[in-house]
C-alpha cells in the first residue's frame, strides 16, 4: 500500500462527521461574501447596463444621463481600464465590449450609493446599437459553419471496417439541453483597496488564483498586488470556476477608481442571463453491434454549444469525448468534436465538465437500440462493460473494471431488480393510464484535470505553541465538504482530535498558484498537500518526542492528542507537551505542503494519453411512474452503489452522491433552458431566466425511496488515505431515471418499441414520447443499416485541439 493511501489506527478520516460549518449554517451565522457588506463602511453598489440584443455593434454609449440620477457615483466603461480589457485568460471576453454578443450582455457598469441608485443610473444610460445577424441555436451555427476553438479528434481502430463487419448498424441524432447552475448564492464580489494600493477582493469563486490573475491584468497590477479571499460559496457546481473573474474585476476596478469598497452582486435574473451554463450538445452517430449486441464501432460527431466565447469549452469538449465510452468497451471508435459559436452566454464548467454530455450520447444510443436488437437494456449494458485488459479509446488502461461488475451485481441485488421487473410488467399490464419503468445504468468517470499541469495542490499548516492547529489550503468550500475532509486529514496525520484543528478561509496570499476547486479533485490534491505539510511537522515533532521517550523517531506514534512509542506499554506524552518542547528547542512548527499527481500525461492535439489518475465507478437503479394523460412522472425508488474508495467522510460523501444524483435528474428531466429562437425583438433572450420559469428539482422530485450504499473495501492506491473523488461522478447516475422514463413511455405501446425521448424529459416531452408509443407501431428516429445518418467529418483545415494553457506552456518552453 502506498504511503499516501495508508491509514493509521483509529483515523479521524472515515468518521461520519457533520459539515464543519453545519452549526453556523443552521443558525444563519455562516458568512457569505454579500453578508460582509453590512460590516463594511461606505460601500458602493454596482449594477450592469445590459443590452437586450442577441448581436449588435455599439455605436454610441452616453453615460452622462446616469450622473443625473441622485446617488450615482461613477460609471465604469472600457476607457477606465488601466490594464487589459478582458475577463478571461484567452483574450476573447472583453470586460466592456463594443460588440454585444448575447441578449443581456453588459456593456458598462454603474456604481451608486445604493443599489436603487445604481439600478436607476444604469437605466438612464443611453446605448445606441446597430443590430447584427445572430445565431441562437446550435443547429443554426452548424449550418452556418460558425465554430470556435480547436476541433478534437479521437480515433482508435478502424471504424469503417468495424461498421462494415457489424451484424447491426444503426444511426441517429440527439440534441440535448444544457443546465443552469442555479447555485443558491448568485455571483458576488466585494473589493476594496488597502493601504499601499494593495487590492483585496472577497469573491464567491472556485478559482481564487485565477480571479486574482484576471483582476491584476485588468488593473495592470502584478499578482502580488492583488489578494483574493473566498470565505465559502453558496454553491458553485463549476459555475464559479471561470465566471467570477470579470465580476471581481469590475468591483476591483470600481474600488481603485473611487477609493471606496465596491460590492457587485448579481440578482438572479442577471446571473441567469449573464453567466455561463452547462453546454448543450448536438450529436450525430452511427453504431455497429455484433449478433449478441456487443458494440463493434462508434462513429460520432459531437457539437457543443459554446456560446459567444471559448471560456472552458475546449476542455469540456475534450472530457466529453473522453467519456463517450462511459463503461463500455468499443473496439473501433471515431469521435469528432467541435464548438459552435452562438449568440448566447459563454457556456462553462458544470459538475461533470462534459463527461455527462459524452456519456448521455452513448446511454441514449443503448436505450434506443436495445429494443431494436431485441436485448433487454440492462443486459445490453452489462454485456458491453470493460473487462480486464481493456483500454479506453484514448489509450488509458481501465483499472479495476471488476469493480464495475461488482457494483452492478450489488445494485441489482439491493434493488431486487429481477423481482421488481416482473412486478412492473404485471402492473403495466393492468394499468392502462399509468406505467412504470425500472432501469439501471453505470458510471465510469475519470478523475484528474485533463490538463496535467493543473494536477497540483498546496497547503500551509500552522501548529501554535498551545498545540492548536490552523490549516490553509488551496481549495474552496462550496458545500461539497472539502474543508470538513481537510480537517479530518490534518487531525488524522497529526494524531490530534478533530476539535484541535481549525481552518482558515481560502486566500491567495496564504497558498499561491492554486488550481480551481474543480474536476472533483479538491480532496485528492489539497488533501495530499495538507497531509504532506502535517507530515513534515509530525516528522520534526517525532524527533523531539523520541528524545523524551528514549526511543527511535521511527517508532513514535501520534494518536488522539497523545504521542507514544510503538510498543504497547510505552510512555505517553500529551501532544501539547511535545509541541511546547519543540518550540523551546527552536523547531519549526509550521510547514507548506505540496502535491503533484504522478503518472499523468496527455496530448490533447492527438487526444491520447493517460489523463486520469483513476476512474470512479457507480451504478443506479431507478423506478419511475409515468402518467399517460399528462406525461408527468415521479421517481418511486432509487438504489445506488457508488465507489468513493475508502471514504474520508461518509456523511459528506453520501450528501455528494444524493445531491449529485438529484441535480443530474434535474438536468435530464426538468430543468428547461429556453432561448427565444424566433426572430424579433426578443431573439436570443433566455425565456426561462428566473426561478419561476426555470424549475429546479424540489421536494417533489426527491426519490420516494432513496438507498445509497458506498462500495465497501474500495481502497484506492495512491490517493489520499485510500479515498476517491466524489463531487462529479454521481451526477451521471441520473441516466437511470431518464432510461426508466423511456421504458415507462414505451410501455404505452406494443412491446419492443424503440422510443425517442427529448432531453430534458419534461412532462411535455414525455407526453410526446408516450404518444409516439401509443399511436404507432413504428420505432423512433433510429435508422437501420447503411448509410443512415452520417456524422459530419471535420474539414481538412479544422484547427486541432491545443488548449490555451498548453499553448502557453509551449510558448514558454520555446523561449
Amino acid at each position, binding site marked *: 500500500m502506498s504511503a499516501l493511501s495508508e491509514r493509521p489506527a483509529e483515523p479521524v478520516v472515515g468518521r461520519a462527521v457533520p459539515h464543519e460549518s453545519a452549526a453556523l449554517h*443552521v443558525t444563519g451565522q*455562516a458568512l*457569505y461574501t454579500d453578508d460582509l457588506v453590512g460590516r463594511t463602511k461606505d460601500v458602493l453598489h454596482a449594477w450592469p447596463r445590459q443590452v437586450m440584443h442577441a448581436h449588435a455593434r455599439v455605436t454610441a454609449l452616453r453615460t452622462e444621463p446616469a450622473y443625473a440620477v441622485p446617488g450615482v457615483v461613477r460609471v465604469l466603461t472600457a476607457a477606465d481600464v488601466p490594464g487589459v480589457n478582458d475577463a478571461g485568460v484567452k483574450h476573447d471576453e472583453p470586460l466592456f465590449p463594443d460588440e454585444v454578443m448575447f441578449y443581456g450582455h453588459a456593456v458598462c457598469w454603474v456604481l451608486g450609493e445604493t443599489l436603487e441608485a445604481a439600478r436607476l443610473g444604469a437605466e438612464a444610460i443611453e446605448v445606441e446599437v446597430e443590430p447584427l445577424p445572430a445565431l441562437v441555436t446550435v443547429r443554426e451555427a452548424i449550418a452556418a459553419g460558425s465554430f470556435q476553438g480547436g476541433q478534437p479528434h479521437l480515433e482508435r481502430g478502424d471504424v469503417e471496417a468495424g461498421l462494415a463487419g457489424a451484424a447491426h448498424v444503426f444511426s441517429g441524432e440527439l440534441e440535448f439541453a444544457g443546465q443552469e447552475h442555479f447555485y443558491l448564492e448568485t455571483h458576488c464580489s466585494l473589493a476594496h483597496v488597502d493601504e499601499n494600493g494593495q487590492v483585496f477582493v472577497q469573491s464567491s469563486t472556485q478559482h481564487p488564483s485565477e480571479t486574482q490573475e484576471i483582476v491584476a491584468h485588468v488593473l495592470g497590477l502584478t499578482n502580488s498586488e492583488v489578494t483574493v479571499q473566498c470565505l465559502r460559496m453558496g454553491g458553485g457546481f463549476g459555475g464559479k470556476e471561470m465566471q467570477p473573474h470579470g465580476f471581481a474585476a469590475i468591483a476591483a476596478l470600481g474600488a481603485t477608481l473611487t477609493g471606496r469598497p465596491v460590492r457587485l452582486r448579481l*440578482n*438572479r435574473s442577471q446571473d441567469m442571463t449573464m453567466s455561463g451554463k452547462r453546454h448543450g450538445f448536438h450529436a450525430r452517430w452511427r453504431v455497429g453491434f455484433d449478433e449478441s449486441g456487443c458494440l463493434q464501432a462508434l462513429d460520432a460527431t459531437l457539437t457543443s454549444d459554446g456560446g459567444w466565447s471559448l471560456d472552458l469549452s475546449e476542455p469540456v469538449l475534450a472530457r466529453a469525448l473522453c467519456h463517450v465510452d462511459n463503461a463500455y468497451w468499443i473496439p473501433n471508435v471515431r469521435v469528432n468534436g467541435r464548438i459552435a459559436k452562438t449568440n448566447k452566454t459563454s457556456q462553462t464548467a458544470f459538475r461533470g465538465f462534459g463527461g455527462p454530455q459524452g456519456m448521455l450520447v452513448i446511454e441514449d444510443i443503448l436505450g434506443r437500440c436495445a429494443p431494436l436488437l431485441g436485448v433487454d437494456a440492462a443486459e445490453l449494458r452489462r454485456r458491453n462493460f470493460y473487462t480486464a485488459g481493456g483500454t479506453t479509446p484514448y489509450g488509458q488502461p481501465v483499472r479495476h473494471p471488476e469493480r464495475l461488475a461488482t457494483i452492478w451485481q450489488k445494485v441489482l441485488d439491493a434493488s431486487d431488480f429481477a423481482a421488481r421487473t416482473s412486478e412492473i410488467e404485471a402492473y403495466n399490464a393492468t394499468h392502462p393510464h399509468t406505467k412504470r419503468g425500472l432501469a439501471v445504468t453505470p458510471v465510469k468517470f475519470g478523475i484528474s484535470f485533463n490538463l496535467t499541469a493543473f494536477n497540483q495542490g498546496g497547503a500551509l499548516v500552522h501548529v501554535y505553541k498551545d498545540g492548536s492547529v490552523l490549516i490553509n489550503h488551496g481549495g474552496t468550500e462550496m*458545500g461539497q465538504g472539502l474543508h470538513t475532509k481537510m480537517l479530518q486529514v490534518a487531525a488524522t496525520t497529526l494524531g490530534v482530535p478533530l476539535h484541535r484543528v481549525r481552518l482558515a478561509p481560502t486566500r491567495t496570499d496564504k497558498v499561491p498558484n492554486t488550481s480551481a476547486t474543480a474536476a472533483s479533485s479538491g480532496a485528492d490534491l489539497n488533501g495530499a498537500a495538507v497531509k504532506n505539510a502535517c507530515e513534515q511537522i509530525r516528522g520534526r515533532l517525532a524527533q523531539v518526542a523520541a528524545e523524551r521517550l528514549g526511543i527511535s523517531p521511527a517508532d513514535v506514534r501520534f494518536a488522539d492528542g497523545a504521542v507514544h512509542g510503538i510498543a504497547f506499554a510505552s510512555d505517553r506524552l500529551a501532544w501539547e507537551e511535545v509541541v511546547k518542547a519543540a518550540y523551546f528547542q527552536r523547531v519549526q512548527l509550521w510547514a507548506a505542503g505540496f502535491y503533484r499527481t504522478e503518472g499523468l500525461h496527455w496530448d490533447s492535439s492527438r487526444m491520447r494519453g493517460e489523463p486520469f489518475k483513476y476512474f470512479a465507478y457507480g451504478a443506479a437503479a431507478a423506478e419511475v411512474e409515468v402518467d399517460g394523460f399528462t406525461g408527468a412522472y415521479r421517481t418511486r425508488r432509487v438504489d445506488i452503489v457508488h465507489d468513493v474508495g475508502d471514504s474520508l467522510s461518509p*456523511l459528506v460523501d453520501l450528501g455528494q452522491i444524493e445531491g449529485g*444524483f438529484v441535480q443530474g435528474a434535474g438536468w435530464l428531466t426538468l430543468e428547461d433552458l429556453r432561448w427565444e429562437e424566433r426572430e424579433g425583438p426578443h431573439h436570443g433572450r433566455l425565456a426561462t431566466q428566473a426561478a419561476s420559469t426555470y424549475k429546479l428539482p424540489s421536494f417533489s422530485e426527491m426519490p420516494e425511496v432513496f438507498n445509497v450504499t458506498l462500495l465497501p473495501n474500495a481502497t484506492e492506491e495512491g490517493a489520499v488515505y485510500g479515498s476517491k473523488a466524489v463531487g462529479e461522478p454521481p451526477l451521471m447516475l441520473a441516466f437511470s431515471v431518464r432510461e426508466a422514463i423511456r421504458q415507462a413511455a414505451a410501455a404505452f405501446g406494443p412491446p419492443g418499441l424503440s422510443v425517442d425521448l427529448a432531453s430534458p424529459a419534461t412532462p411535455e416531452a414525455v407526453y410526446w414520447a408516450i404518444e409516439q408509443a401509443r399511436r404507432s407501431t413504428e420505432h423512433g428516429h433510429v435508422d437501420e443499416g447503411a448509410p443512415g445518418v452520417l456524422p459530419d467529418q471535420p474539414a481538412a483545415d479544422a484547427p486541432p485541439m491545443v488548449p490555451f494553457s498548453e499553448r502557453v506552456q509551449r510558448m514558454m518552453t520555446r523561449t
Partner: protein
Amino acid sequence: MQSPAVTVNGRSLPLDGTAPSTTALDWLRAQGLVGCKEGCAEGECGACSVLVARPGRTTPTQWTALNACLVPIAAFAGQELVTAEGLGTPDALHPVQREMAERGGSQCGYCTPGFVCSMAAEYYRADRAPAAASDGHPGGGPDHLHGPNGFDLHALSGNLCRCTGYRPIRDAAFALGAPDDDDRLAARRSQPPPPAPATRVAADGAEFVRPAGLADALTLLADRPEALLAAGCTDWGVEVNLRGQRAPLVVAIDQLPELRGFDVTASAVEIGASLSLSEIEERLAGRLPLLDQVFPQFASRLIRNGATIGGNLGTGSPIGDTTPALLALEATVVLASVDGEREVPLADYFTGYRRSVRRADELIRAVRIPLPAAGLAAFHKVAKRRFDDISSVAVAFALDVRDGVVRRARIGLGGVAATPVRARATEDALTDQRWDADTVDRAAAVLATEGTPLDDHRSSAAYRSAMLGQALHRLFAENPTPQEVGA
C-alpha cells in the same frame, strides 16, 4: 400613530427612514440579520423564509412562515418576526437546527436558514400530531410526504436546495419531536398576535399606508386613484423586485377585519378577500372539494400563507389557479367602494388581459360561492414540476351526474386565453348526455379546441390543447361512476 417598529427575535427595531418599497429581506439584512438570504427575490426558493406571529385556528398565535423577499417591511410594523438567528445559536441549537446540522441537512448552507424557518413553523403547528405508522414508507409515516411525527413535507415545498437532494432534510423533519414545555416560541402561541396597527411609512415621495379600517381604506381609494392595493404581496412583491415597479402609494388591506370574514350559510360560502389561501383551506375544512384540490397545487405552503384570494383575482392573471375553479363553482365577486357594494358574477368580471370591471376606487371585499356545489369536482393543473409551479393549463370541473346522465356541467379553464374562461362548448357537449366513454370522447375533442393556447417556454400550444382533452379523459377514467349527489 406611533412611530413604526418591528419586533424581531424579541427586540423592537424602528423603521425610521426606511423606504416604503424596502423588502423585509433587505431590511433584515441591513439590521445585520444576514441569515435571511436572497436566492431569487420572487418567492420561489424560500431562502428568505422567516416566522411571523399570525392568528391561528387551534392556538391564538400560529408561527407562520412567509417569504421575506416579497413583503415590504412596513407591512410588518407592529408585528413579531423570528429569524434563524432568533431560533438558536451554535452553542444552543434549536431542535430543528440540531436535526438539520447532525443529519447532513446543509451542504453549502445557503438555503439552510430558510429551511430551518419553514421547518420550525411546521414543528410548532399546534395540530401536528404523530400519525399512525404504516410500513413501506421510508420515513415511517402514512405516506412518503408525512412523517411519523405528523410532519407534512408540503411545509417545505417552497424551499429549494441545490445541494442535498432533500433526503437528509426530510429525515431531519421526520425526526423532530414535540416542543419542550419551556420552549419560548411554543409558549408564545397561547397569546394572540399583536394587532396590525394603522401605519404610515413615507420616504422620497412614496408612501405605505395601513388604514385603520375598511372605511378609511375606501376613502383613500376614492381620493387617491394612484393607490395600489397590497394584500399578501406575493404578486406585487415580484413586480417590485424583478420588474422594478414602484407605487407612489401602497395601501395594505391584508389585515382589514372586514376583508377577513368567513361565512357559511345554506346557500353560499362567503370568503373574505384578505384571507390567505392557507386560512381558507383550514376554514373550508373539506366543504368544497374542488377548492381542496386547488390548494395543494397552488404554489407552496410559504406562498399560500401570504397569498390571498382577493389578490389572486386582483392580479387578473390568465393563469391564476383559483379562477378556473371559482368559475366552475359559479362564484361571484363582491366589490366595495365608498358608494357601497355590488356583486358581479366572476364569469363577467374579467374583460381582457389583466383587465376587469373593477373600478380604481373599488376593492374586492369577498368572494361568494353558491351551495350546494356540484357532486363531481376535479382540478387538473398541468405544469413542469409537481410542487410549486405555474400552470401551463388548468382545468376545473364541476359536474352533476344523476342516473348516469350529466345534468349540469361547469368547466373553468386557465392558460388558454387572455383571461380565465368557461369552456361553454364543452359544457354543452356534456349536458344531458350519458356519462360514458362515447360522450367523453366527443366532449374531449371539443374541449381540446377551446380557447387559443399559446406557444411559450412553459409548453407548446399543441401540448396545452392536448392537455385540455386529456383532462376530461382522466376525469372519466378516475370517476367512471361518480357518486350521485345533488337534488
